[in-house]
């Protein structure tokens, strides 16, 4: 089939937008990462790889943010995937209850991140918050915590909020994946006397691999890029325990006026996300099974 050259015109707007909003900023950030630009002045100097050297050897907080990001990502990826899959299995059938549950599970995703941060800051408030009050009410007062003020657990409290906020989105992907599995396979499993767990293990999960790949990769990227919730709920504190790379970049660029250094961290950050995503896709694709 011969494709008319004019068809390339249709790609042009998209390519143009991609160039303006992705390629140009990326190249610019790379350029500025080799400078000492403060973000305000009209001049700067090239500093070679100084910014990168500082990030890897002379910046304790940056290394801490990477650790915090990894903790946050691991908790979010594991539990968000699990929760979204569990919700998807619950709402798979189209009954009145499941339609209501779908709406309920999806509801948090329509909120703005600032609203979510406000709601959960209130939930977590150590004295006025409903979480501690509920624990007290049901006799589990010993589990009451300073959820966002305790440096040991604050990052996990934020992870729970992130999961609540985004699990509904992942639910949609899993539901689509589950609906694409042929009913015949379940019928065969039933005829052969497979238990529900065996059916899930040998039929559902392998055929959900493409959806799971998307969910896990997307959740990884999303949790690495998390900014709004952390910024609004803890601002990186206490004592940098919830400082993640994105909030740190903001601090460096817009509070410390070290735009060149912030660009270098951004470039490193982009490479880390790209690498993890690539490895995930590779690992998860090799697990795919076809029937």
């Amino acid at each position, binding site marked *: 089939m011969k494709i008319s050259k004019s068809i390339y015109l249709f790609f042009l707007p998209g390519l143009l937008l991609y160039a303006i909003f992705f390629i140009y900023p990326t190249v610019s950030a790379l350029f500025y990462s080799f400078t000492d630009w403060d973000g*305000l002045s009209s001049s700067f100097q090239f500093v070679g790889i100084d910014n990168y050297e500082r990030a890897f050897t002379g*910046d304790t907080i940056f290394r801490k943010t990477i650790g915090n990001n990894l903790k946050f990502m691991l908790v979010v990826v594991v539990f968000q995937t699990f929760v979204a899959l569990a919700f998807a299995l619950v709402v798979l059938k189209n009954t009145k209850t499941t339609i209501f549950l779908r709406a309920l599970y999806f509801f948090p995703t329509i909120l703005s991140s*600032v609203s979510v941060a406000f709601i959960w800051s209130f939930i977590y408030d150590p004295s006025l918050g409903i979480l501690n009050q509920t624990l007290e009410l049901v006799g589990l007062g010993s589990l009451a915590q300073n959820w*966002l003020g305790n440096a040991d657990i604050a990052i996990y409290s934020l992870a729970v909020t992130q999961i609540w906020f985004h699990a509904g989105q992942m639910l949609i992907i899993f539901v689509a994946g589950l609906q694409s599995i042929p009913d015949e396979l379940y019928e065969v499993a039933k005829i052969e006397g497979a238990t529900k767990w065996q059916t899930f293990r040998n039929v559902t999960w392998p055929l959900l691999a493409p959806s799971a790949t998307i969910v896990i990769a997307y959740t990884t990227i999303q949790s690495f890029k998390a900014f709004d919730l952390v910024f609004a709920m803890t601002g990186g504190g206490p*004592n940098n325990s919830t400082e993640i790379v994105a909030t740190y970049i903001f601090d*460096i660029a817009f509070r410390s006026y070290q735009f060149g250094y912030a*660009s270098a961290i951004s470039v490193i950050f982009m490479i880390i996300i790209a690498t993890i995503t690539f490895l995930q896709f590779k690992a998860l694709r090799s697990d795919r099974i076809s029937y």
Partner: protein
Amino acid sequence: MKNYSFLPLGVLALGLLLSGCAGESTSDTSTEGAEDSTQISFIHWRGEDKAVLDDIITQFEDKNPDISVEMTIYPSEQYQATGQRLLQDGSTGDVFTSFPGAQFEAIASAGLFEDLNGEDFVSNFDEELISVGQKDEAQLALPYQLVFNMPVYNKGMFDELGLEVPKSWTEFQAVADTLLENGITPIAFPGADIGPNQFMNSMMMNNAPDEDVFEKLQNGEESLTNEWWVKTLEDFQLLEEKGYIQADSLGTSQDSAMAMVANEEAAMLATGSYHMSALLDLNPDLELDLMAPITVEESEAVYEGINTATFMLAVNSQSEKKEQAKEFITFLSQPEIASHYANETGQHLTVNDVEYESEVLQNTAYWIDERKTRFQPRFLITNAQIEAAVLSSIENVLGGADPMTAAEEAQQLVDENRE
């Protein structure tokens, strides 16, 4: 050194890499005026002042029909992230505002402040309160508001319990013990947000009376592991251990801490004078005043409190409408206009001859010239990363760390970020 005209595009670059980081903005425009009038742009971050500033702008435009003012208000984080960068090409922010400290230094280094030395309106301000807007003998900005960053206390409660304002650390602890015995938390500390930023000032003011201590810290002549800062951290630890600040203080938000004081569960709010009107909105029966803990013995106390001259008015050096911008600042610095602004916003001002009408402003105005206050030490840290390290050490101690260990960890960060 090279000059590049495409620098502003770099902002877009990092901004887009940080996709999702942008906050929401609110803005307001006042564009009334004659068609041939010159429109100036006024940018700042105080959304809560919108109504009174709209009114002031209307009055200004009535008196100056050849000038109209377009006011744009950014949320403070967004103002830092993007607003001030708009100054670079001179198309916006003919009149703009800045914070003292790191932001002032950065804008000054970028040469975006017009030198206001020699302008008539400078004499409308209290000369002792505008030095924070000076650099290299130039008057780059004129602080408009005068804030006292020290605890607000329930004076009525103190009177009822027969308590005097403590003049030493020993007396402070005795007062705090009495409050505790009466079932009252001495200090509501909003550790989840602005608590450490504000309370560190009064906690350290007499432990390190040398006003150059943070400059010395930044140039390596001082260390956080020295007596003055370790003692400050030990004092914070004492407040925590004795229950003088509420439990779980690092998880307490500003609103929760204010509620504690408004409900009279706590006697002091560890923030500043800017919260007095909000506290009175929550509980109009409160009788409030200001009081900083004196962390040394009475004979060693040098300062009684903290002041900050902020909301610094400036003219953009890149502007093509500097004369009109200066007219607007001249108008803002008229005593009657400044009085209107002060009374509507509940703020003390740096402008001379302001008449405070509200009871709370009148009752606390004695802090302006009758008390020995020092400029907020935190704003004398001009490197934001070093400021963050200092604040982190407070959070670290309130989280249970040993003061010396916290000081050592923070000093390491200071060393890493020293320029």
